[in-house]
């Protein structure tokens, strides 16, 4: 489709929907206040587009077809994102007025069902993590990390050394939100670089800890797919200086039922329900975060908790040491229900099969990718990986001058994703693949075949790779305007002012 920007489709006078009109009595009531209201009334109507309903539908359905959902492709290329199957039955389950149209302030007697699901989901995640309690209030992984750092801060303050402990330690292959949230909470951030084998450097940690250490915030396995075998020692080292240890479990998909945060001694951890527990990624949210804590952090949990009293589920606001509200009400209810349904569809054995199969698939993919000339998997050579691998096209780049980003764009011509954002850029010409448990062997083979084909093109016909995409809705996009305040256009009105005024 060559679908215009929606403003270009406007015909003055067309209506997309009609709305309820006020009754005469209501109009009369308002008229009594009109003299005070008049100054607040808008003089010019907002320049929203005017379209008949079918044209609105056509516009959005067309552009939806210009988007590549996980249901449509072998979504291995968005590594670190755990693009697993989101079961359709969960969509059926959540699309009921009994969830969509429920208000959080209703009488508890009228929300027992959703309270029970939140309570049960908390218990499931507590068992999976080994932690005491879980807050489901946040809407994404990063927000859950924020909630964790807020609890760490409150914990140290409650212990009287909030002023002293002003440093947070993380590793470079931990998700950037660990560093960013710690910074936003007022901490200095110490970032550890990997050792020669790509493992987190335990000596660097020993050097970094001190009485100023508030916490270690660390991912494991990291986005390299490498599992830090010394994780228990890492935690112990931090504990020895009185710091807390927070586990970023965004990469938990390969270790469900295999090892738990509690086993390594962590005080806090978080899950991304939209990654590990299969709620759809929704074009970039809403996700849902779960902040899991050990007993000693329980008093600091955000928001209200849900308790089971006899056979009744009830909301408990009585948490005087709580960090307070980190998000509205109870969290992203549809995603909590989806995650609950997903876990209940699998059970303990099923979760373990998920982990094992994700790891099996990843190591198969690793073997296949390494067969492609020019591809490599830096660090920990010859070692098995957990659920994903950060690869490199450095050899291919040196040979052909074709970059990983160019390969990624060319992949889109074959209907496949290939994520080109790989913070941090330690691995040269990086790409990260994560097959999850959702793809069959033949699908993994198909993805690798396309990857190999494009790598071949880089040698035989680099121009076709460099000028990609050839097969997409749009052609090669420029970047000049995006970083130039005089030219960037973040809204249609700004575009008109800056680019169409002449």
């Amino acid at each position, binding site marked *: 489709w060559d679908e215009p*920007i*929606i*403003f270009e489709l406007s015909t003055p006078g067309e209506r997309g*929907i009609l*709305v*309820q009109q006020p009754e005469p009595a209501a109009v009369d009531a308002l008229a009594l206040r009109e003299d005070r209201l008049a100054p607040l*009334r808008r003089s010019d109507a*907002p320049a*929203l587009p*005017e379209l008949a*309903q079918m044209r609105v539908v056509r516009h959005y359905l067309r552009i939806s077809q210009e*988007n590549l*959902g996980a249901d*449509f492709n072998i979504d291995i290329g968005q590594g670190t994102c755990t693009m697993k199957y989101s079961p359709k039955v969960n969509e059926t*389950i959540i*699309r009921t007025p*009994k*969830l969509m149209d429920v*208000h959080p302030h209703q009488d508890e007697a009228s929300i027992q069902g*959703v309270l*029970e*699901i939140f309570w049960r989901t908390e218990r*499931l995640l507590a068992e999976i993590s080994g932690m005491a309690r879980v807050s489901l209030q946040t809407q994404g*992984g990063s927000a859950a990390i924020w909630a964790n750092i807020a609890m760490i801060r409150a914990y140290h303050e409650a212990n009287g050394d909030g002023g002293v402990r002003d440093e947070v330690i993380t590793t470079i292959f931990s998700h950037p939100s660990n560093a960013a949230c710690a910074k936003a909470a007022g901490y200095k951030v110490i970032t550890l670089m990997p050792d020669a084998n790509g493992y987190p450097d335990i000596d660097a940690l020993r050097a970094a800890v001190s009485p100023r250490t508030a916490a270690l915030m660390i991912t494991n396995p990291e986005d390299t797919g490498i599992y830090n*075998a010394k994780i228990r020692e890492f935690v112990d080292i931090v504990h020895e200086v009185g710091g807390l240890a927070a586990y970023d479990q965004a990469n938990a998909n390969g270790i469900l039922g*295999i*090892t738990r945060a509690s086993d390594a001694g962590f005080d806090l951890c978080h899950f991304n329900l939209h990654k590990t527990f299969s709620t759809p990624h929704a*074009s*970039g*949210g*809403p*996700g849902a975060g779960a902040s899991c804590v050990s007993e000693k952090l329980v008093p600091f949990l955000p928001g209200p908790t849900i308790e089971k009293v006899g056979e009744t589920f009830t909301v408990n606001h009585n948490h005087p040491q709580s*960090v307070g509200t980190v*998000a509205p*009400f109870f969290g992203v*209810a*549809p995603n909590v229900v989806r995650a609950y349904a997903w876990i*209940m*569809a699998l*059970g303990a*054995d*099923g979760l373990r*099969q998920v982990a094992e199969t994700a790891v*099996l698939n990843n190591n198969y993919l690793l073997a296949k990718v390494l067969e492609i000339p020019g591809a490599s998997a830096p660090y920990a050579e010859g*070692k098995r990986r957990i659920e994903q691998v950060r690869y490199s096209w450095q050899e291919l780049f040196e040979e052909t001058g074709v970059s990983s980003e160019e390969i990624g*764009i060319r992949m889109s011509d074959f209907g496949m994703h290939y*994520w*080109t954002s790989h913070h*941090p850029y330690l691995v040269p010409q990086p790409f990260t693949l994560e097959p999850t448990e959702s*793809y069959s062997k033949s699908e993994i083979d198909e993805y690798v075949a396309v990857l190999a084909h494009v790598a071949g093109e880089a040698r035989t016909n680099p121009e076709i790779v460099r000028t990609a995409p050839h097969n*997409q809705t749009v052609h090669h*996009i*420029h970047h*000049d*305007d*995006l*970083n130039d*305040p005089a030219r960037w256009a973040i809204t249609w009105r*700004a575009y008109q*002012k800056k680019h169409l005024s002449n």
Partner: protein
Amino acid sequence: MNNPVTHPYIPNTVPAVREEILAAVGAADIEEFYADIPSSLRVQGSLNLPAPLLSEAELERHVSGLLNKNTSTREALSFLGAGTYNHYVPSVVDEVIGRSEFLTAYAGEPYEDHGRFQALFEYQSMMGELLNMDVVNVPTYDGMQATATALAMAGRITGRRGIVLVSDANPDLVSKVTDYVRSFMDLTIIPSSNGTADLAAAEQAIGADTAAVWIQTPSFHGALEEQGARLAQLAHDAGALAVVGTDPIAYGALTPPADWGADIVCGDIQSLGIHQWFGGGRGGFIAVHDDPTFVLEMPSRLFGLESTDVPGEYGFGDVAWDRTSFALREEGKEWVGTAAALWGIAAGVYLASMGPTGMAELGETLLARTAYAAQQLASVDGLELSDSALHLREIAVDFSNASLTSTAAVAALRARGIEPGVVLPGNRLLVCVTEQVTAADIDTLAATLTAVLKEN
């Protein structure tokens, strides 16, 4: 160890395929892949979880059975608001965001995911029209986060610590903001006067260390701030910013804050086509003028229009990517992560469906019904309005002279199938009316309250 069957979610548990893969990678068994995990850290046996519901039919029946214990606001007359609103969601909105292409996508590039970039750029653009501002973010988590970030932005931009809140704000929002900014900013709350800002007290509080004058309109009690221009002027005179928290629902009818001097406007988009979802359907917007000083302080993604190799063709991309924590880790502005894109698409479809006339009419309906509710509830014996401000959608009602407390009245009305509102401290009740609540419904509320208060 394993479920007895190949699970539909995990194709490669087919035994023959599993063996084939193990052979291909030269592994004897799956344990080999976990060699790095010390045995001391391994789960012994199985997790202690309930038995799974393997058949889809049984799973669906179990979870739906739990949800069916809920009563929805479609089944009872509800005057609940206080941060989550029962506005009508056009079917077109649910159709679009139910599309698997949007629902299951994530972080693709602007080629294969052109549609998502376009839909969110259009969302930004339509919000910009509604708010009369040139820059709007891809939604952050919710209005609380948007507000906390807007205030933090004010701190960074002005290099000052002070926040002066001049309106009645949702206590949960105040809690969020307080904990969020407390390592680098301080919040001062100026009690409202008759529902809106106490101008004199505000003037007193605003000073050289003030980063932001924080106005909520409508306030937590639904009061519309009539002195916005004056407050913005006070802020600007002190070198501070005017940060306005609001709900965009009525700006088809009302003057948007930018027109009276707001520098940063923020809030939640739940009202714009997102179901209540037990309070869990949220997105936060932050709108600013097209000034790099402001834009570069925004942590969220901002999608911008770009040219392509084909003249006249529109492409999209991330504006000023290097602001973000994705690019710069802790040196970025706060952080960015998976937030609320799908709800942004929903709000875009909502605004595209409503158009200027729909939004204007909706604003009018809300104002009129709110006025009617105020009139009718004020006429109930024993009840008084807590203030005489202009209100949008919500009003606070005082039960001090009634025969029941507001808490007792809520219990009495619930027994009659009505959720009359949210109890406020001070024996008050926060009553919310949307376009979904008719004048007849308001009459029912007033009559039932009258009856209940008379009985006691």
